[in-house]
């Protein structure tokens, strides 16, 4: 991996990396000129969808779904709330590719998702309902109750008819929340989660390494190169190959 030459001014470097980001989405720019870093001006935690209350809920829920412990960072430390925020603000949150025309019927489990809500709408309605439920039962919003009670609420939502929320099926929301949390923990860091490759380091996935011809028949041998993302190795502490 080539390091940008020292003679390049900061402004030139930023311009070059910005061009690299947009070009690599369509042209397969060689790794040598692909950016290793995101310009400082882009912040992964810039709020795009969640309100402050909603964000507090998501941070609290993520910290219970994938907690920080002796094995390493949890979902919050890995940036998963930022990931979910960005996903909900984008085409996924708007259900851009889903068939969203009526008539609407409940259907069977086999027929799958039949709710009128996009993912973004489902989050908004469900968070409000769950916070109301927690205020009634625990006298505080979800983010403010103790971790054991939070686990109890999440465990009830996980069951098919565990909590009867007024506006949305709690279980449908929990399924989506858990799925998105896992996605954020284990997807390429360029989407805002899996920060410092926290998820990939936990399990041992080295990222999109591309070539294992030399290693595939070395049975039982650990693969030792550190994780790499599609935009490089930011956050691994490794500065050169």
């Amino acid at each position: 991996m080539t390091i940008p030459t020292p003679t390049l001014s900061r402004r030139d470097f930023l311009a070059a990396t910005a061009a690299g980001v947009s070009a690599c989405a369509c042209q397969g720019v060689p790794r040598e000129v692909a950016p290793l870093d995101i310009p400082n001006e882009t912040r992964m935690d810039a709020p795009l969808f969640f309100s402050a209350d909603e964000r507090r809920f998501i941070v609290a829920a993520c910290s219970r779904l994938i907690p920080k412990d002796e094995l390493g960072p949890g979902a919050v430390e890995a940036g998963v709330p930022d990931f979910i925020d960005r996903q909900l603000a984008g085409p996924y949150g708007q259900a851009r590719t889903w068939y969203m025309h009526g008539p609407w019927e409940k259907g069977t489990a086999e027929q799958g998702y039949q709710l009128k809500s996009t993912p973004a709408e489902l989050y908004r309605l469900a968070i409000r309902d769950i916070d109301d439920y927690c205020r009634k039962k625990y006298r505080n919003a979800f983010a403010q109750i103790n971790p054991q009670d939070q686990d109890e609420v999440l465990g009830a939502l996980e069951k098919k008819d565990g909590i009867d929320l007024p506006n949305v099926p709690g279980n449908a929301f929990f399924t989506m929340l858990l799925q998105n949390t896992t996605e954020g923990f284990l997807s390429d860091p360029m989407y805002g989660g899996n920060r410092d490759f926290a998820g990939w380091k936990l399990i041992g996935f080295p990222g999109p390494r591309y070539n294992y011809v030399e290693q595939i028949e070395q049975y039982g041998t650990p693969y030792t190169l550190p994780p790499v993302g599609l935009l490089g190795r930011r956050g691994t502490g490794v500065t050169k190959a």
Partner: protein
Amino acid sequence: MATKLPAVDAVLVGFGWTGAIIAQELTEAGLNVLALERGSFRDTIPDFSPTHIQDELRYAVRKATFEEPERQTLTFRNSTNETALPMRQLGSFLPGVGVGGAGVHWNGQNWRYLPTDFRIRSHTQERYGKQFLPDDMTVQDWPLSYADLEPHYDTWEYLCGISGKAGNLGGAIQPGGNPFEGPRQREFPNPPLARSAASMKFDEAARSIGLHPFPCPAANTSRPYKNPLGVQMGQCTYCGFCEWFGCGNYSKASPQSTILPVLLRKDSFQCKAGANVTRVNLDSTGKRATGVTYVDAQGREFEQPADLVVLCAYSLHNVHLMLLSGIGTPYDAATGRGVVGKNYAYQATANVDVFFDEIVNPFMGAGALGQVVDDFNGDNFDHGPHGFIGGAYISMWSTGGRPILQHYLPEGTPAWGAQWKSAMHENYLRSPSMQVHGSVMSYRGNCLDLDPTYRDVYGNPLLRLTFDFHPNELDMMKFTTDRAVDIAKAVKGARGYRKRERKGHYGIVEYQTTHNTGGAILGDSPGNSAVNPYLQSWDVSNVFVMGASAYPQNAGYNPTGTVGALTYWAADAIRSR
């Protein structure tokens, strides 16, 4: 009002595998060919470049290379007494969209059907008696034999540079191959892929209990290969991003990596992307097609006249277009009359995950890198004591270790919390999964027709899918999944296994396979089929219908190898007509 365009000799609806083969063959025969593709144009570079294609979230989870239900989907119900509801997001199967079709995102698991798969009704009745088949099972013999298709399987396999080991050369069983396969005229063009750690462990276990493991024939090239069209493919690097991704390494056979470099240079060939065909137009007699109508990306409607119309879309869309266009008599499940939409079938799958003490590096792999036993597929074993027909192969795949969708955890692991996290840490590098990949027979009630309520973005009725698993399939899967467990128990160095069975009703949510078959089946008479043995509509003689929509029922194998062979078989007939 549609704009009428200048006529072409042949218009192809859809430009995936079958479209590319037909276009190559018909242009060689001197015809002017136009392919209309609803999706966008795509090529290996830039669209599948390794600098961005290895993105699990974008491609596998958010499904960037697949059909968007927002534009076109289907409705689904388990039985005719339910109301079908739209498949609002993709799940159980993933039709491709764009040039190359699903040929871009397949794994490359490349199979021939067994000789007995082509005559399943007569073979079953001969071996097990007339009473063996349930009354509502509507399986029928193919109107052609394995021997008829063999030369075309061969052409297809050499086009794709299949990596494998023959098990039967001209009737002589070969060590290291599949001893159950039909006779083949020559060895595969390339040797098997390198074997992964999981394949080796499976191989040893299966042999130890008397089974016959072999490497899955792979459309991932084990070495550099130049195909008969002169197109160069590169050696697979085992990057583990085949299925649901394009290949940036020219190693996975796709239209782009095998045919398009030759085809796209021809003046007699043109492809229009973003052209969604909404009708095959018929003349006043209804017996002859005059061309097709399509809508472009701007919503403008065009009429494209042609002497020959070849439906090369995904199996479900071929059937949908026939129903919308009034080609053939629609099937009616209540009476059993009609043929278009009849005998829809699918694939039955189950898994047995194995947990090893030692690491197996699951992220090193290829789409068709796996060790397989075929001992319990088709009629390779005596069905007499079991009372069901059909079977499954059992495979240990090393298709990749993408973290979001390809992690396997022991039974009883919570789905979240500290215990989940710890289980991920302990098991990801140590747990490959075995697949049980089973046949699905056709039944009177499993069918396709037009939905009475829901419409697509073009205002056309959605296709309606009525499908459920039947006792024959569930019994077969129970038996074959238990055989997979036998292998899991024989594996050395394993801590345990997790059986994920196929039970209950078919559901459209969980991904199973994109192996949807039937609906425009081939047969020997207009009374029992929508197309003749050469895939020509019985009703509209200048319309041909390619692909797995022609299968009268589904065998226990991935369908693409037979799709390729069948397309060459049909192309041969069209050319020599």
